[in-house]
């Protein structure tokens, strides 16, 4: 048995060798653009580089990490990042599943509806952020105009932490739900129709079919979506920057935006690198979970 299994593997390996050689330039390129900057980032997080100081950098050990971890902004921005992530996931995944289930039914007009639904995915986040910024404008925005027409008083959408966070999640969801929907739809298509037919013959209700068949079979896909979305939320920047710039004050500043401000506004490059390393450490478990979930999907 062992020889039977291992021989084709050996053959496959032999066949793959020339192909593997062809990928060497890509690996070199990846090393240049990913690995070297990554390790250089870790290296400079132990120095004291400030672009405005013009002093030669010196080794400061864990000083940057101590400063960053002692700063209240690090924790408040991490908290904001987690809030956006949690509420975003709770909003985007159920709505995405719901839309996928509706599209999976192949009702009349599904094709047009599907095309319309994926349009937000095609737009650049900056354009989306700018459009929504005008829409959320307290005095001139269409949202307040619509609310006003039904007698609801103007809401200062971007003027307080709660409403601004809500607005950010709405905008991100508008762009991300189609992505969730498409992946779930692909997972639904992969489920054999014979399972549904058998369940119906056994007298299962629609709710039971969803809980006992659909949900368990799309769970690996949902896990992958969740991991991808968590990583997306951790690096959320463009829409947020255009929409609120992290304001009012720092009320909607995420850890990613705070890292940007530290590096490119305060010009504290080493401190920003330390924050980057911390974000990487936070992201690592998510990455490993994603790897596991991906295996499940395969």
């Amino acid at each position, binding site marked *: 048995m062992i020889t039977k299994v291992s021989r084709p593997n050996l053959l496959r390996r032999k066949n793959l060798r020339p192909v593997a050689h062809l990928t060497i330039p890509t690996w070199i390129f990846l090393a240049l653009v990913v690995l070297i900057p990554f390790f250089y980032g870790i290296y400079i997080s132990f120095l004291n580089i400030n672009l405005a100081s013009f002093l030669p950098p010196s080794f400061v050990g864990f000083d940057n990490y101590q400063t960053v971890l002692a700063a209240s902004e690090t924790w408040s921005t991490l908290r904001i990042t987690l809030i956006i992530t949690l509420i975003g996931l709770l909003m985007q995944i159920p709505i995405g599943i719901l839309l996928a289930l509706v599209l999976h039914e192949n009702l009349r007009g599904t094709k047009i509806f599907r095309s319309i639904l994926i349009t937000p995915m095609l737009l650049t986040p900056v354009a989306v952020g700018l459009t929504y910024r005008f829409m959320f404008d307290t005095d*001139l925005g269409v949202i307040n105009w619509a609310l006003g027409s039904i007698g609801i008083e103007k809401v200062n959408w971007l*003027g307080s932490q709660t409403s601004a966070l809500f607005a950010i999640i709405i905008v991100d969801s508008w762009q991300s739900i189609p992505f969730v929907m498409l992946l779930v739809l692909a997972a639904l298509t992969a489920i054999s129709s014979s399972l549904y037919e058998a369940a119906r013959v056994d007298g299962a209700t629609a709710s039971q079919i969803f809980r006992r068949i659909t949900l368990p079979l799309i769970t690996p896909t949902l896990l992958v979506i969740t991991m991808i979305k968590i990583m997306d939320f951790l690096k959320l920047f463009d829409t947020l920057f255009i929409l609120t710039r*992290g304001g*009012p004050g720092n*009320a909607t500043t995420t850890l990613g935006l705070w890292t940007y401000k530290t590096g*490119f506004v305060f010009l504290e490059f080493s401190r920003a690198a330390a924050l980057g390393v911390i974000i990487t450490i936070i992201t690592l478990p998510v990455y490993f979970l994603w790897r596991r979930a991906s295996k499940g999907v395969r």
Partner: protein
Amino acid sequence: MKGKHLLKRRNFKVVALVAAAVLTLSACSSDSESGGEVGGEINVFLIPSPSSTSIQSFIPEFEAETGIKVNVSETPYGEAHQKQLLSYNQKAGAYDIAQFDNTYLAPFCQAKAMLPLDSYISGSDEYDINDFGKGQQDYGKCKGETLGLTLSTEPMIQWYRTDLYEKLGLTPAKTWDEYYNNAKKVQAAGFGGQIMGFGPNVSWWWMTLVWSFGGALYDENLNPVVNSKEAVAATDYLKKLLEVSPKGAITATGDDTTSKFLGEDIGAMLNYSGYYGMALDPSINKNAGKIGTAPAPMGTVDTTHLAGWNIGVPADAKNPDAAWKFLEFVLGKTNSVKYLESGAAAIGRQSIINNADLVAKNPYLPQLEIPSSSRIERYPQIAVWPEFEVAAIDAVTQVLTGKQKSQAALDALNEKLKPILAKEPKS
């Protein structure tokens, strides 16, 4: 074959001699046109703005007149200063002229990144530094040296709607109490009372008020003093103004503030004069002909918050003499009217401020005349200002959104600023 070669060699010599003669003659003619001093080419670093557009409009004429080739690279504000710092740090000599915000004068000064221009200025009748008011002559100075010429003069001034004020029998405020009362009356009449940017640029207005109320941001030893009773009073007043502002003002940037004032019915606005270009644009200004300007109201201390662009010559410039020639050409007295008319924010030259024709077209120009009695306050000249500013904006926003009282927020800010200011090199 040999004869042919000889002919060719002879021909080559002739061609070489003619070429050398032509080159020498053209070089001489170019020198004679430019005064025989400088030539070559210069690289100009600009930041997209009306001033930048105006500068570029002079290039063809300058090149034709001097033979100096001018190359321009524009970089958006968000990364412009970082790019300059990187270039100066590497002593790359990439730029001969660079536009920069006055807030970056301090880090450039500490790094000795810019060439002192005093010897050029003192020897130039064309630039004529005495055409500027006494206080404004120092706008680009750091530690006694001029590191940047004034590219725009932008005091924080009072803007008001002449039609609304006339209808309600109001006059531009001279004190902060009057300013608030005017706004209240305009609001009672069903309009927006006044507007300032209470959003991500709130520091502009907050520090204007702190200075005007007699406070300061830090003392001479760089200890923060933002929780003084004057600063608390200024912050309380800022919050009070929010009550007489349109709702959207809480998130407004500098640009939003101006757009709202020019596009809606709002009684008054406090903003930099440099925004007046927007008032001249009929697609933005729905209230053309109804915009008046006046000096900012006065608090317990007569101060003028002065902002604006600088432009200078980096210390590592490869062609500083040609760079100065270009700056003198664009920003000198001869072309100063043309400079303004090509869309730039005005430079506060006496010859411009007192030019009746220009004032008729740009009624705000008299506001650039800052009386000698008024103490000019610039953006804090410290390298850690960006970090200071973000902390200040956060604290002031806590007050404006009602999360904290002024005293508590400013006490906390004062503590937060101590380690930030401690990083600033003591001069």
